[in-house]
């Protein structure tokens, strides 16, 4: 065990997986000599060389497109897109090929590919550096979408994603990269995809969240605990296909549900969860479902960023309204 930040845990995962599996390679802009603009890939090119830590030309579509070819031809590529806002140049390759090559070849070719990108707001960044596009990828048949919330989960989920036979969109909340450190298991540490994490047990209300919002929900839960409200906090970890059983079980217990994400509200992950809860356990509900989310807007630049990014106060208000319904 070592105390690592999220970015250090991601780096540790790469060092370990690449040492034991020579099919694994990393490609992207500045991933080699520079070690990645956030230093996620630092120290790798020295150890594994330029054919496994590949500094690509500045061209996102071919970063993903060539990675698809590599995956078809027996490799386990990890494609880094430098920021989530640049993923859309590669969207055709994701949508038309990575997600459907298994289907298009009737099972002959899979695409075991991880597409990583720093994700989300909260770091006072430039335009196109603060987006939360996970729902766009969740809507693509054949993809998996993973967003970690802790250093330990980042390592364990990343290793599971690299070993997964299908394409995984792995979004790393950049606000959490260096926010805190925790003990991260050495060596093989896998967090299974599709399994949520019970962050905090509670009987009164369920908060479903993931990524950078997990801490926000924990702080809100701490606050209402003083008022005698026990909030259960569930971290989805795999945003899609998510852990439906964990959601339904918790809502059946508490009868109240708030979904918290920084991504825009409409047609978002919260909407899907709300629909499924309505279909499966409507009669358990004692209050309407609420969503605390980013608004349906382009993420604001730094001066207004905090008004869009959900904070504990907005979650606490939603808890109060739900409890008082």
């Amino acid at each position, binding site marked *: 065990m070592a105390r690592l930040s999220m970015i250090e845990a991601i780096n540790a995962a790469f060092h370990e997986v690449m040492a034991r599996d020579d099919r694994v390679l990393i490609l992207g802009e500045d991933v080699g000599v520079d070690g990645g603009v956030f230093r996620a890939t630092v120290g790798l090119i020295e150890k594994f060389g330029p054919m496994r830590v*590949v500094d690509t030309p500045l061209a996102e579509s071919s970063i993903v497109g060539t990675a698809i070819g590599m995956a078809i031809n027996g490799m386990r590529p990890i494609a880094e897109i430098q920021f989530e806002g640049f993923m859309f140049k590669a969207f055709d390759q994701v949508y038309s090929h990575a997600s459907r090559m298994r289907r298009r070849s009737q*099972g002959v070719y899979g695409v075991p590919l991880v597409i990583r990108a720093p994700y989300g707001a909260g770091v006072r960044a430039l335009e196109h550096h603060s987006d939360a596009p996970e729902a766009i990828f969740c809507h693509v048949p054949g993809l998996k979408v993973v967003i970690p919330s802790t250093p330990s989960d980042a390592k364990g989920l990343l290793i599971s994603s690299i070993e997964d036979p299908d394409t995984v969109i792995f979004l790393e909340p950049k606000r959490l990269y260096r926010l805190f450190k925790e003990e991260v298991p050495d060596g093989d540490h896998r967090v299974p995809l599709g399994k949520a994490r019970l962050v905090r047990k509670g009987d009164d209300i369920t908060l479903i969240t993931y990524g950078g919002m997990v801490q926000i929900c924990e702080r809100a839960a701490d606050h209402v605990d003083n008022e005698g409200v026990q909030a259960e906090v569930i971290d989805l970890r795999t945003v899609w296909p998510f852990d439906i059983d964990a959601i339904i079980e918790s809502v059946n217990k508490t009868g109240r549900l708030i979904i918290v994400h920084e991504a825009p509200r409409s047609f978002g992950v919260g909407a899907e969860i709300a629909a499924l809860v309505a279909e499966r356990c409507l009669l358990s509900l004692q209050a309407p479902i609420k969503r605390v989310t980013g608004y349906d807007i382009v993420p604001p630049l730094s001066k207004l960023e905090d008004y869009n990014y959900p904070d504990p106060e907005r979650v606490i208000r939603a808890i109060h309204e739900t409890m008082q319904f």
Partner: protein
Amino acid sequence: MSEMDTIQMVDADGNVVDEKAVKSVSDELIHKMYRLMVFTRAWNAKALSLQRQGRLGTLASVRGQEAANVGMGMALEKGDWFCPAFREYGAQFARGVKPGVLYTYLGGDERGMKPPEDACILPICITVGSHLCHAAGIAFAAKARGEKVAVLSSSGDGSTSEGDFHESLNFAGVYKLPVVFAIQNNHWAISVPVEHQTATKTIAEKACAYGIGGYRVDGNDVFAVYLTVKRLLNEARSEYKPSLVELVTYRMDDHTTSDDASRYRTEEMLAPWRARDPIDRVRKYLVAKRGWDEQKDADLIAGCTEEVEQLVRDYEASPPPDPADMFNYQYFEEPWHLKEEREEVIRLLGESKR
């Protein structure tokens, strides 16, 4: 680069232009290529006929491009990879794709999308130019493992306007990948002529921008296509030299069966290309130089026609796919939501039968 630089070995009248090159092709091989060209035309003509009768779906006719198709397909060696677009049936056949399986696909049955498992061939790619990236990536993986294999992609003149064309050739040039990008320049991207795709005189010269080899070939001359692509694949395989090869040909039919080319091109535009037919050219050469005659030719056409008829009988006799099969192969392991949706379809089907 000009027309003068176009590689030709046998001219449109079947006269030998490059004696040494043409002689290097054995009797067995040229007969095999000729047979496959004739077969591809018969297969394609039958497919068009079936489509008009509602017995097959939309088809992109390959008539006029048989030499480009067969020449490049036959140039591949075992272990090489082929990444086709959607007008490469002849090359797919050369690579081991069963002609009947392509009828299955064009008939709307996804079982026909399954490539032969050991043929190293990707499925047909319809999103134009996107598969050039896959070719480069496959080549990168081969080079990273030190394998001596080459990768061939094929796409049309329209694909050279796509960003993925530029990105793939650029990546291949930077990493010196064992890949050959073949462009079937058939002069048309649906209604847009090649002059509106690019201001360059040739497609081959675009290779200069990527630091890779660029070659222009008479795409209706199967000798030139086969021998040039074979040489370039050898260079890719043994020297990690990527290249772009332009196969100059002509789309003799509509873009697809949903298109009406009379809206944008005239009979006068087609006439010179009728005189450059890739199959007529080989037949004239074979008659003059390799002991071929009219009777043998008639027997070959009759044989191909009968083979195609049998494929159609088999295709039409095969049972339709199971509706629940549409959930297959979305993921390696089916997640909960797809299990539920699959069960819903099975349940609805069961109820509607009652």
